[in-house]
């Protein structure tokens, strides 16, 4: 795969007000092959953006087309798809930002002569999570049930617009990265919040398989995709799977089983459990990453297990009395000092 190089790479990164977009844009701007990086968002970034030029614009309106044309952008990295409404307001605003925003962005891209590459961060949540799922989804598999609402529906819509765009502009390399749940010391997401709770609720009688992508590997794969320009759709996840119980035990969390029908209702002291997270915590999900290795040529540095171990360092353990008691007993029996 020929690497795209030479000066003159101009990146447009959406969603720089949030951590992922800001950090990626800042790192990209430091790259020697990149001439300049333009960050776009409706709100200004909350931290240092280094050499990144910030344009306060809403990707939902046509201003974005002017920015792409004026700056002669050759690569668009679309990171502004959000999983939770957060500070943006309600669910309807979130849907509009995600879906209408992507439509407008792609419409702007379609008329841009300078454009050569589009990278979209998607998620493995497009596969849904149900009892009828195959154990490992490959990129060619469809979700068993098309999601009717929420983030999963947004992502499904966004991906279908991106596919349409790729058909209309075959000269542009379009890369869709379906990333597994991202975890890391500084990640803020519903699942990270779930595991940071002192008492972690789990769905009674279910122990779902989970896969994680380390935040460093997320930056890694975005950088890799921009650098190599391999077109296509790819699952991106750390190696291996861990069950919910394993993750909770690694993090030394106390779990409280909640019957499935009640799980979505309770907010458990402020925690957010959108429908897709509830489904994930019930049935779990695994994705096959063969194409990520063979075609995209990306190798994550962290396995799912490494990711959880690294995340654990940032989480205060809430319980380890059972283990301490057993360790003491073991050291007495073997005569060796317990750890």
């Amino acid at each position, binding site marked *: 795969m020929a690497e795209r190089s030479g000066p003159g790479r101009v990146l447009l990164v959406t969603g720089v007000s949030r951590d992922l977009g800001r950090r990626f844009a800042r790192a990209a701007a430091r790259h020697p092959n990149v001439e300049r990086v333009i960050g776009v968002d409706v709100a200004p970034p909350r931290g240092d953006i280094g050499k990144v030029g910030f344009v306060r614009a809403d990707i939902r309106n046509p201003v974005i087309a002017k920015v792409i044309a004026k700056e002669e952008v050759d690569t668009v990295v679309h990171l502004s798809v959000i999983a939770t409404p957060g500070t943006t307001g309600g669910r309807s605003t979130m849907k509009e930002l995600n879906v209408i925003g992507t439509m407008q962005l792609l419409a702007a891209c379609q008329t841009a002569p300078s454009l050569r590459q589009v990278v979209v961060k998607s998620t493995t949540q497009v596969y849904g999570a149900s009892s*009828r799922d195959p*154990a*490992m989804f490959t990129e060619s598999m469809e979700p068993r049930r098309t999601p009717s609402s929420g983030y999963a529906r947004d992502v499904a819509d966004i991906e279908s617009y991106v596919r349409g765009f790729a058909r209309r502009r075959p000269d542009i390399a379009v890369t869709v990265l379906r990333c597994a749940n991202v975890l890391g010391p500084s990640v803020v997401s519903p699942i990270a919040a779930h595991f940071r709770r002192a008492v972690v609720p789990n769905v009674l*009688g*279910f122990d779902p*398989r989970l896969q994680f992508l380390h935040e460093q590997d997320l930056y890694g794969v975005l950088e890799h995709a921009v650098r190599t320009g391999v077109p296509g759709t790819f699952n991106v996840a750390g190696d291996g799977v861990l069950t919910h119980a*394993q993750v909770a035990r*690694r993090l030394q969390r106390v779990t409280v089983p909640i019957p499935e029908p009640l799980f979505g209702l309770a907010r458990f002291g402020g925690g957010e459990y959108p429908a897709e997270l509830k489904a994930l915590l019930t049935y779990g999900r695994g994705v096959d990453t063969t194409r990520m290795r063979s075609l995209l040529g990306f190798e994550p540095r962290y396995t799912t297990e490494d990711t959880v171990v690294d995340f654990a360092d940032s989480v205060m353990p809430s319980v380890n009395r059972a283990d301490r008691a*057993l360790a003491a007993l073991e050291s007495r*029996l073997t005569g060796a000092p317990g750890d």
Partner: protein
Amino acid sequence: MTESAAQGLTGTTARERHPLRAIPAADWAAALEIAAKEVFGAEWEEQLARFIVFLRRRISGEYSVDEYGFDRELTQRFMLAVLRPIKEKWFRVEVRGIENIPTDGGALIVSNHSGTIPMDGLMTMVSIHDELGRDLRPLGADLVFRMPIVGNIARKAGATLACSEDAERMLRNGELVGVWPEGFKGIGKPYSERYKLQRFGRGGFVSSALRTGVPIVPLSVVGAEEIYPLVGNIPALAKVIGVPYLPITPFFPLLGPLGLIPLPSKWLIEFGEPIRTDAYDAAEADDPMLVFNVTDQVRETIQQTLYRLLGERASVFG
């Protein structure tokens, strides 16, 4: 009585007078030691230490599961250990033709299904593990994975959803996959239809074997039909609950939980000669006529073997 014990009895606060405080730590230790000797035998210290290492690994989550959720350690050390005495002492399972299962590489075991609950699948798992040292990876209906606890245990024990994606993925990775094509029609059939094979689904398992070129090993299980003779069913209530059938046996629900004890029938299980599929082209997996013929061949083999085994078994509880 030691001094501390005396103090416990003469304590002034409720906390000090707590009955457990009257027992000195040394007595606790002695009692535990006797209990440990009772459970683990003379080499109890070593055995217990090993058990605690196991327990700590489980508590800290430092065990591994494969991509389907199979927990080999838990299955071998716990589930199979529980099932083994049932297989050997209760059902006295006699295993024949184990040499028909390849010792390595992918293979598809196709079995008849009976017994109200899938006890035949569990006994097959123990038998294959003990006689051959291989793990059977059962394919289960999606209802299994929709149910709490049951679905969880099924995945931990190595099962996955009966769909072509999972079946072919496992077979390509060289796993020994077990399938019960009769499904709920098989285990939920009335006692009067015992040992009569039901329809073999749509032959999806044959397509998967053809596509991956693995041999099909027919398995005939005799004995499971009699463990819970199904004499009645409440279809209306089953429909409300969302299960395929609600069994009534001579002892259940009449005797309550006691009725859940399976009858100690004598089991014979026989693995038949493998049916090779590598001679066919993978594209022929989409030929409905070929799939139909191979399905029929497997079904006929199992049915004939069932009749022969029934003739060889001295009596139901022999």
